[in-house]
């Protein structure tokens, strides 16, 4: 009974506060002559966006700009997570190396990077990249249409035609076939106790049909190569220094945290486990795959999830380097339309969705590998 009274009081207070906020906001918007609503998403933006995955034209709407921003955030987030995991794992293992020099270097890396704000690192990297790379007309030629200059990394782009889409389709079909084969192999192992070979056949199933299809269609490969114009190399694909800065900054920073997680994860598995596996006659690879990793992962996954979340959230600092992520674009939108409330809500919605998805996915995975206790 008492708890119901408390809750009723709490609810009343909450409703009161929300009511106040809403009335204040309406009153303030009116008094300042500001409009509200999401109708601006359908109006012409007129803003330039420098780095996009999908086509962008200033005549497009603010709604499309929002979408462009989300894609940019996802791009840097996904690539960042993959690279940070790789780098972090390497450094985490390096910290445990029996080699003194390697272990020391890795720990200097970790201690330095994680004790300096990411924002400062991003600003520094961007200034550094801008000052060190050669100018647009005198790029570092890496070879065959690959150039590196102040406009970033420029590379040839495959001109897609129907043949490539067919190869893509074949590849997809082979992927399914590969998964079916692996399933069959597992079942067979449980049934007979003999494990069929998996790695080579899998790769074969995946690659051979696609290559065959590609060759059968005459291997069409025409590339769009960047050409030198008056100001810079135009054409092909490019990765701007803004994207590179944000990616490198996020990867270096997050890797220093992941390294610590990996290290403690490995340390958490007692050495007895390795010895026991040896006693059972497992090979080193099997020991790692079947005994050590599953146990280390159980310790690693929860903190790793929050690092992934941090990386995505930290990508919001991209605006400092001029990379048009969703925050930068909504910030621009806010300034052009005056719809601060709406723009900030849109930003939050994106990150909440991403965070919730990552959390749910990782929770599901975590549950699957969790220790089943009696």
């Amino acid at each position: 009974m008492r708890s119901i009274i408390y809750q009723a009081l709490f609810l009343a207070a909450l409703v009161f506060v929300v009511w106040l906020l809403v009335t204040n906001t309406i009153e303030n918007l009116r008094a300042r002559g500001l409009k509200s609503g999401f109708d601006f998403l359908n109006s012409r933006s007129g803003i330039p966006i420098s780095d996009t995955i999908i086509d962008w034209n200033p005549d497009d709407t603010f709604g499309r700009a929002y979408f462009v921003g989300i894609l940019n955030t996802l791009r840097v987030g996904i690539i960042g997570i993959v690279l940070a995991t790789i780098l972090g794992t390497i450094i985490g293992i390096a910290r445990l190396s029996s080699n003194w020099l390697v272990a020391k270097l890795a720990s200097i890396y970790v201690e330095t990077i994680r004790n300096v704000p990411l924002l400062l690192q991003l600003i520094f990297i961007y200034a550094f990249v801008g000052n060190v790379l050669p100018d647009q007309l005198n790029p570092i030629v890496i070879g065959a249409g690959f150039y590196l200059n102040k406009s970033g990394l420029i590379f040839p782009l495959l001109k897609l035609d129907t043949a490539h889409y067919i190869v893509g389709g074949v590849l997809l079909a082979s992927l399914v076939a590969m998964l079916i084969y692996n399933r069959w192999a597992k079942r067979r192992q449980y049934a007979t106790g003999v494990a069929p070979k998996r790695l080579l056949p899998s790769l074969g199933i995946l690659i051979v049909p696609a290559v065959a299809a590609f060759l059968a269609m005459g291997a069409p490969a025409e590339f769009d190569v960047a050409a030198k114009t008056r100001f810079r190399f135009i054409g092909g694909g490019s990765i701007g220094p803004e994207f590179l800065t944000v990616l490198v900054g996020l990867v270096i920073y997050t890797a220093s945290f992941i390294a610590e997680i990996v290290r403690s994860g490995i340390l958490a598995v007692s050495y007895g486990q390795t010895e026991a596996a040896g006693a059972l006659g497992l090979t080193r690879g099997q020991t790692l795959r079947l005994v050590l990793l599953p146990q280390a992962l159980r310790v690693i996954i929860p903190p790793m999830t929050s690092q992934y979340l941090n990386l995505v959230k930290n990508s919001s600092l991209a605006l400092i380097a001029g990379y048009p992520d969703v925050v930068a674009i909504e910030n621009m939108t806010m300034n052009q339309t005056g719809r601060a409330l709406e723009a900030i809500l849109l930003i939050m919605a994106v990150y909440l969705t991403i965070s919730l998805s990552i959390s749910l996915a990782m929770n599901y995975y975590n549950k699957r590998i969790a220790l089943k206790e009696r």
Partner: protein
Amino acid sequence: MKKLAIAAATVVAGALAAGPALAGKDLDTIKKRGSLVCGVNTGLAGFSIADSQGRWTGIDVDVCRAVAAAIFGDANKVQFKPTSAQQRFTALQSGEIDVLSRNTTWTLTRDAAQGMVFTGVTFYDGQGFMVAKKLGVKSAKELDGAEICVQSGTTTELNLTDFLKANNLSKAKAIVFEKIEEAVSAFFAGRCQAYTTDASGLASTRSKDAKNPDDYVILPELISKEPLGPAIRRGDEELFAIVKWALYAMVEAEEYGVSRANVDQMKTSPNPGIKRLLGVDEKNDMGKLLGLKADWAYQIIKQVGNYGDVYERNVGPKTPLKLERGLNALWSKGGLQYAPPVR
């Protein structure tokens, strides 16, 4: 009792926020506070910039000083609050600053729908482009294919996309930065081949931020009209009049040839116009009409200078910015600076 409570509330307000507790007349708030809070640029040479010791200089800064001189008789009674392009309007609307003097373009939308009013034009400007001299570009229309650094959140980026579209420069690419400092340093680091902002800003940037100013040229085209001037919040006609006439007094003084150097001699001038302006003629107290002291304009000219003084000191040909008067010459000399008569 109620009065005491209100007074107390105001003091509490001052204690942490230095803002008005209950918005009354802005002018009253300013007088009570004893200083003018002026929103200025975070750093634009010639317009508003602070040195290592926090001393502010520039046209926009001098406008604030002139207003303070008019209100308090002391040009130093100003607190400068650096604001970013993104924050400036919020700061003005919310009452954090009394006057926004931050190279802000006067547009219809801003005047009509953003809760503020512009009081005049201190600088007639237009958006231009700057490029490295070695590229040999002579006109902005040659910029197809170039990367152009631009700051976001202003009319500048919109003007740029309009210009590129109108002139079919489809291969040009805008590189957008959150803050002006970032756009500028990216341009000078060679990230872009061109940089666009108001022409005065280009000159300012070239003088202040370029290692060697002669390596850069400002292209002749101006792609927009940018009348820059101070703005105040809506709803205080008296403050509006004071800020407006502080500007006009400076222009009027230049017309009469009253400058900072000769203002004391001019006090004895027989010219009735000068007498009216400097408040020497007691029967013709212009200050009283504005709610100010009789010598309001004298204080502006004595402590800050006339429009010409301010221009020459901050952006004129003898400063690193090297801006000719051009549009900003007096109307009598072929420019646009024109003051209604102080009478």
